């Protein structure tokens, strides 16, 4: 691709990112503030933000740090939250043929839910300038995220507890969860996951791991059941 086309795609990516920025900034600030409140040093909190660079996983790790979970449980649970990226990676790779290794590694590092979702919409529009469009949106989101994290780390402690700002985390997750509830199987997976994490008390804070596995199993069973039900009719 000529470099002017690349620049154009990159710029289109930056523009496409702007409508998402308020939500991303708010989530980033909450993640930064939560890490600092859990007792991580500012350096550790910021490292979480640029090394892991995935809000849900950062929040899970933060909560487990605060709860005194063992290190291996934190790594395992935080990683399970990020397994979905493998699916995104597989989809995105089909549109990254002909790119350099550096471009692919950058794209891998910068891969997020939002960047993937917006890029997928462009794929469905039939556009061919996917790699640099993706890099434009993903790099911009990265900058917004890091700035917001720093703001959260250093300003979070000044927000009075009576504002219940911690509840923003729960609402953010609800906002991410709702679009996934497209059918009964997905809803069943979510319901099973939620119930498991509340009612199944496991040592070492393994509840979330168990909830992810049980929820996935219920979703798959439901999907299989729905397919068989259709076949019988």
């Amino acid at each position, binding site marked *: 691709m000529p470099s002017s086309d690349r620049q154009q795609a990159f710029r289109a990516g930056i523009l496409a990112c702007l409508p998402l920025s308020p939500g991303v900034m708010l989530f980033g600030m909450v993640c930064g503030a939560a890490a600092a409140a859990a007792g991580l040093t500012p350096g550790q909190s910021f490292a979480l933000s640029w090394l892991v660079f995935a809000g849900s996983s950062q929040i899970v790790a933060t909560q487990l740090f605060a709860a005194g979970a063992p290190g291996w449980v934190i790594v395992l649970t935080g990683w399970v939250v990020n397994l979905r990226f493998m699916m995104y990676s597989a989809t995105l790779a089909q549109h990254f043929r002909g790119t350099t290794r550096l471009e692919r590694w950058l794209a891998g590092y910068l891969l997020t839910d939002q960047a993937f979702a917006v890029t997928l919409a462009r794929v469905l529009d039939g556009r061919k300038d996917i790699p640099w469009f993706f890099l434009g949106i993903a790099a911009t989101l990265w900058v917004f995220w890091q700035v917001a994290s720093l703001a959260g780390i250093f300003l979070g402690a000044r927000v009075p507890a009576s504002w219940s700002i911690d509840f923003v985390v729960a609402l953010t997750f609800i906002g991410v969860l709702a679009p*996934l509830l497209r059918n009964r199987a997905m809803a069943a997976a979510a319901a099973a996951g939620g119930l498991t994490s*509340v009612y199944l008390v496991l040592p070492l804070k393994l509840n979330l791991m168990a909830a992810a596995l049980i929820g996935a199993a219920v979703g798959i069973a439901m999907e299989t059941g729905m397919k068989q039900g259709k076949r019988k009719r």
Partner: protein
Amino acid sequence: MADIAIWGVIAALGTATFATRLSFLALLGEGELPVWLRHVLHYVPPAILAAIVAPQLLAGAPGLAATLDGPRTAAALAGLAVALVTRSTFATIAVGMAVLWGLTLL
């Protein structure tokens, strides 16, 4: 946890996450996800997101002692309704927080 152990956990989680993201991009889509893995990956996000949220909407310790927390549960349901209709995280947060603040101030 010791300071050095915290750094180790952050580095390990960061590395595992990067490897997961890079996986198929590095292979340039040469590999294919097995169907069973695709299924698991499809259903893990709703399960784990709900698992993270659910305890925060209740009062009391997890387990059979957990009960509904009036304002938080109501604010979460309002947020869920907004999220389902608008699909906007920002609107979800705005409405949910407004309901929570309104109910706790009353």
